[in-house]
């Protein structure tokens, strides 16, 4: 069975509505996450907002942390930043065994 694959990389851009649809969240929740700084759209107004492919991942992580660990949104923002910092540090350290 041939499956169409969509690679979520840096060049992918999604609109506000597409993001809501992809992550199954309300516009209000996306707005809250933008306010909290969890995701940063580009564009002069909500109608023109464009998000990165990796914003999709941040939204999904945010939802899981809220749902599974009862973290509030400000806490989620801190955690996601720390996770990304950890990732950078791990990479810089090198992966050789």
């Amino acid at each position, binding site marked *: 069975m041939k499956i*169409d694959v969509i*690679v979520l990389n840096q060049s992918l851009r999604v609109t506000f509505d597409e993001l809501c649809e992809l992550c199954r969240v309300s516009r209000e929740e996306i707005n809250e996450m933008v306010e909290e700084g969890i995701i940063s759209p580009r564009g002069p107004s909500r109608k023109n907002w464009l998000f990165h492919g990796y914003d999709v991942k941040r939204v999904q992580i945010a939802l899981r942390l809220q749902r599974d660990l009862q973290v509030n949104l400000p806490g989620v923002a801190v955690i996601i930043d720390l996770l990304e910092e950890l990732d950078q540090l791990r990479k810089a350290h090198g992966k050789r065994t």
Partner: protein
Amino acid sequence: MQYKDYYQILELERGASEEEIKRSYRKLARKYHPDVNKSLEAEAHFKEIGEAYAVLKDPEKRAAYDNLGSQWQEGQDFRPPPNWDAGFEFSGGPAFAGGEADFSDFFEELFGGLGGRPAAESYRSRFSSRGEDHHAKIAIDLEDSFHGTTRTISLKSTDIDRQTGRLVIRPHTLNVKIPQGVREGQRIRLPGQGGAGVGGGSRGDLYIEIVFNPHPLFRFDGRDIIYDLALTPWEAALGATISVPVLGGSVEMKIPANSQSGRKLRLKGKGIPGKPPGDQYVVLKVVIPRADTKKAKEFYKRMAEELPMNPRATAGN
């Protein structure tokens, strides 16, 4: 099926209080949550913890579970005795955080006939009856990204059983084409390959995260790969042409004279393919011959006399 020792999973004694159970669950859930814990077993462990909590936090289920006796070992072959749950009343499905139910056979057999789907106040289920998104990780080699490859993955896919209307879990294999030039941490989204929708809703999506297996020669950073090249002192001092491995073969690389350890040379476009392709960085490491023989020691002493230098001098000294 195999017995599941829920007390062991939650690191509790059999007589643990409800407060202790809740505390232990919260601590372990934080520790093994797959977003926080990057080991490959984290997700399975997290689900196990959720299942154990679902049973032990509910007094009725816990009592019925305790009634099975404490002589069983985790993983031991197990059959529930007839009427093991006589006199116990389980109300509704287990409500616990952790997204879609993915219970063990043990749980399904003992507590599964209760409507199947968890009554969890899932953040997302308020807004849509679409199926849950699934997440998986695939470990590939650097060469797989260089050439592109096809991987077969087995998933536990959920479906609504036609006859019972319950959510059932069916194993499922997919052939996924991994595109050339995929990088670590990148995700591939397969639309409609996630969990079954409820009430006629569409299926969720499957997200596959790419993880690279450690490579014997290269380290990686985004699109770039890094190769550590060992040099002799004379190669570093006088310069040399050295054959350096790259993805897909090797290249002859000119090492400039007077290269110090740590110097980074760049092989443009020799990293992970793409638009633009990544680069390969070659990090130089000068290795000195051992001073084990009298001759070697004398040679070094002569070198100290003839090539004096102070590597610890700071600028301006």
